[in-house]
């Protein structure tokens, strides 16, 4: 009854509009999945039937089909190597961002100090600034420092950590808001050390936020293109750069096969986050 009444302010056309927006957002996702499973050389409607040949080609398992269509033997393992590298890079930047982001959140949420809003905005700002400019700034800085950081793994990792940390700060802060500080005080007054209190009281309670932060920063790093452009390592490309290069010279749907993995990864990790709590709060937008 109350539920019904709550919709009263909404003109009926809004439901239709909301549906259109969802269709606009989801159609490209569906198209990528269908294109990745097509049997032909490119996607058309109706498709030339379905097969796993492009998925296998992406995995480096079906070189025969790949050679036949583009005449480039041995090119396909490039993707799975890049996938592995991006995975490793995303994993390392997530670990670093989690540590830095959690530390920053604990101070930014719990302490009242002059300039607090400024520092909150400062730590969140890399989300909104042009990634390619951040990458170029780091490249120039590395070259000026002369420590061998340009186009190195560590240099690339640092760039990713700078853009991933804000996402951790957002989700961890969201779960710190509902945190009852007296629990920590109780632990401390019963003789627990600061580290014990953090590990046994604080961490379990903010775990949903930390998990969500880990997942978001992994995804941001894994799909990062803009920041990577100027920091990329010559011998080892990330998956988004590999796909981009492939798009310039080929027309086969291997990128769509890569897209199937990316969409699955994102949707699965969002499902996990949703189980841990309210996605509205973790997105950094909801209350």
């Amino acid at each position, binding site marked *: 009854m109350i539920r019904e009444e709550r919709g009263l*302010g909404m003109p009926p056309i809004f439901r239709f509009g909301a549906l259109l927006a969802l269709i606009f957002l989801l159609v490209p996702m569906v198209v990528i999945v269908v294109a990745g499973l097509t049997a032909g050389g490119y996607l058309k409607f109706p498709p030339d039937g379905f097969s796993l040949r492009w998925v296998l080609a992406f995995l480096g398992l079906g070189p025969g089909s790949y050679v036949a269509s583009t005449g480039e033997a041995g090119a396909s393992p490039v993707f799975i190597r890049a996938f592995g590298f991006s995975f490793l890079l995303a994993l390392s930047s997530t670990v670093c961002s989690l540590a830095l982001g959690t530390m920053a959140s604990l101070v930014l949420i719990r302490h009242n*100090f002059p300039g607090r809003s400024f520092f909150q905005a400062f730590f969140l700002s890399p989300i909104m600034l042009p990634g390619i400019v951040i990458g170029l700034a780091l490249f120039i800085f590395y070259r*000026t420092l002369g420590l061998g950081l340009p186009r190195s793994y560590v240099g690339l990792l640092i760039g990713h950590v700078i853009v991933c940390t804000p996402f951790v700060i957002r989700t961890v802060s969201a779960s710190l808001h509902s945190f009852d*500080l007296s629990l920590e005080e109780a632990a401390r007054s019963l003789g627990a050390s600061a580290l014990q209190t953090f590990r046994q009281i604080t961490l379990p309670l903010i775990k949903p936020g930390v998990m969500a932060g880990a997942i978001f920063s992994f995804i941001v790093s894994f*799909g990062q293109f803009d920041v990577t452009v100027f920091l990329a390592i010559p011998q080892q490309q990330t998956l988004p750069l590999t796909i981009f290069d492939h798009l310039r010279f080929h027309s086969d749907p291997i990128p769509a096969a890569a897209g199937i993995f990316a969409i699955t990864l994102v949707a699965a990790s969002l499902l996990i986050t949703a189980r841990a709590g309210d996605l509205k709060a973790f997105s950094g937008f*909801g209350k």
Partner: protein
Amino acid sequence: MNPTKLGREWPFRQRSFWLIGPPLATFLFFFVFPVGALLFLSFNRPNQASLRPAADFNLGNYNHFFTEELFTDALVRTYWISLEVTIVSLLIGYPLGYLMARTEDRRQSNFLMILVLTPLQVDTVIRAYGMMIILGDVGLINSALLAARLIPTPLPLMFNEFGVIVTLLHIGVPIMVLSLMGAMQNIDPELEEAARSLGANRLITFLRVTWPLSMPGVLAGSLLVFVIAASSYTVPRIMGGGKVVTLSTLMYNKIQSSAEWQMGATVGVILLMTSLIIVYFYQRSTPHPLGEVT
């Protein structure tokens, strides 16, 4: 917060203040200093042999930027595209944002969130590829229209500004939806119910109650979408096909194809500064970006 509570917690809290050290040092060293280096370099005389910032301060690059059409065109084009993306994102995203703000059931709201967050989080290169399949000359739209004999030749839907805008919308709409949802959650549904029970129809209720109260979300979402659209490099690079020159692609070209480090840095600084100004207004619209002290 009541004063006695604050008094009890202060000494305890202060002990953890050192935790800001490592993140602050990282951000100073690898975010503030690099941006400083970029800013420094943008004031140096053009020198293709060196990208080391030098103590040679002049405004030549900026003068060059604002007097040559290549640069001013890119500037105007970047912000014009961003403006179009912002307005259309608002139109497309508003109903969905409202619907999601009014969805209180956790399962339903998480389901809608997954539908909105998945497209937002899949990498931009792959999403742009999805748009290429839809908008290309042999893409879905053109092949369907050609098969139905509605058009004699493929419509130019990508490798132009149109393709860039449509693909940026795919980033802008979810961001707009989430911003609107956040702000609209704070609108008390009873206000709308009151308007309705006093005899206002749905349209009047919307125009006089819902829309004005959703203005904070409209403002925040618009600033966010605008700044993210202006920042994008991937989308104009892939969907523009080299024909849509924005500040980000121009910066890349200046550096990668002609090693004009100082001029590239200048373009980068101008893009960064405009973004910073918008970020400043965005933060002003939300006084504590992460919320109040717990």
